């Protein structure tokens, strides 16, 4: 039993690595994608829109397989499985985050931009000090949803052979002829998401000083 828990903890570490690295890269990339989607240049906005449509319109499991195997078929070589997982998750989640950012940015009243312009703020200052802080507050509930989904989606990494928590649990279940390990994995996911959920609640409370 102790051995099983140790294995599952190791799997959890892998899951957490995927989770953290995905957020680290997809959160900023999503902003870039959102900016592209809102670009006045129709070539850029259409191309970015197509990217978002593909990422949201096809299964993540398929994208992971594609990211891992496509370079192999095209160039005859591929990168390691873990890197492929991160690339797959990052490009998928950036598309979702981009749409959340876009919704938030477009919900800021035009008067905020006009006041900033009349007061002489630069475009950069207007975005970083006037618009972005208000966007963050508005998108917290939607982001919470997405981040919780990401915790559970890390289980898909096993499709290209990365032994994350769920894979470890399944292997153990097969060895022991018992569903117990899978049930324990469920508890692990639940605890991780309880923490994520709690963090978002705290963040929401912290930003409640204005509305």
């Amino acid at each position: 039993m102790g051995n099983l828990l140790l294995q599952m903890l190791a799997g959890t570490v892998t899951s957490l690595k995927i989770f953290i690295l995905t957020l680290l890269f997809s959160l900023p990339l999503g902003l870039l994608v959102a900016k592209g989607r809102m670009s006045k240049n129709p070539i850029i906005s259409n191309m970015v829109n197509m990217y978002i449509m593909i990422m949201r319109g096809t299964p993540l499991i398929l994208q992971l397989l594609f990211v891992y195997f496509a370079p192999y078929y095209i160039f005859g070589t591929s990168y390691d499985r873990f890197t492929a997982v991160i690339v797959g998750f990052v490009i998928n989640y950036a598309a979702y985050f981009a749409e959340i950012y876009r919704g938030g940015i477009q919900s800021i009243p035009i008067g905020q931009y006009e006041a900033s312009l009349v007061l002489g703020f630069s475009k950069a200052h207007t975005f970083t000090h006037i618009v972005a802080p208000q966007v963050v507050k508005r998108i917290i509930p939607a982001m919470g949803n997405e981040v919780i989904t990401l915790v559970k989606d890390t289980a898909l990494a096993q499709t290209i052979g990365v032994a994350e928590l769920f894979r470890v649990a399944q292997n153990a279940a097969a060895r022991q002829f018992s569903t117990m390990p899978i049930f324990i994995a469920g508890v692990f996911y639940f605890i991780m998401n309880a923490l994520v959920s709690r963090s978002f609640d705290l963040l929401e409370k912290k930003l409640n000083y204005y509305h």
Partner: protein
Amino acid sequence: MEIISVENLKKEFDGLGVLKGISFTLNKGEVLSIIGPSGSGKSTLLRCLTQLEPIDGGKIEVCSKTMVSTSEEGKVVYADKQTLKEVRLNLGLVFQNFNLFPHMSVLRNITEAQMHVLGRSKEEAARTARTLLAKMGLEEKEKAYPCQLSGGQQQRVSIARALALNPDVLCFDEPTSALDPELTGEILKVIKDLAKEKMTMIVVTHEMSFARDISDRVIFMDDGLIVEEGSPDILFNNPTNPRTKRFLNRYEQP
């Protein structure tokens, strides 16, 4: 001394003329009111002056700098970035809907531009802000957030925010239109006090008795044109144009 000079200003929205050739000047220390029916182009005129709307023809000079002019072929040419930035700071604008920054305290709403646009120190910006807040009767509210204030208080903060940058001209775009009637008085009093201090102002307003009280000059606009212009005494009591008469009659006989 002439602070603003506008010549033959034209503005269209989708081919529809909103300003059809506006010309006027504004002298230092003068209070100019612009009145007229909704859709007459009053607010658009202010928005063109403050660079919120690009113009389609004419010339605007602010503090002896040409902000924008039109060539003989009809091409509109704006000044270089630096000049536009200077002109922007020559003019302050108070919005109908205040447009305060909701995530910043009252004090920070007033200090932010002082620090990041004028480059004042934090202490100096706060000093200026507190002086202005005291003048607006809001010295107790510097830590409050806009959502905790009444509409009238928010509008006074936004006036302080504009004044903090020491504009040469302060423009008001229907400053009381978004307020409950019982709150308009406090804003009108603030503007009256500024007029007494010889602040140069352009006030777009629907408050006729207020315009009559504070203005040195009144412009009546209708359908994108200046129909009549003159001292409040003459314009309100003896308007010459029948359109002015009709408009004023509607206000005087509720």
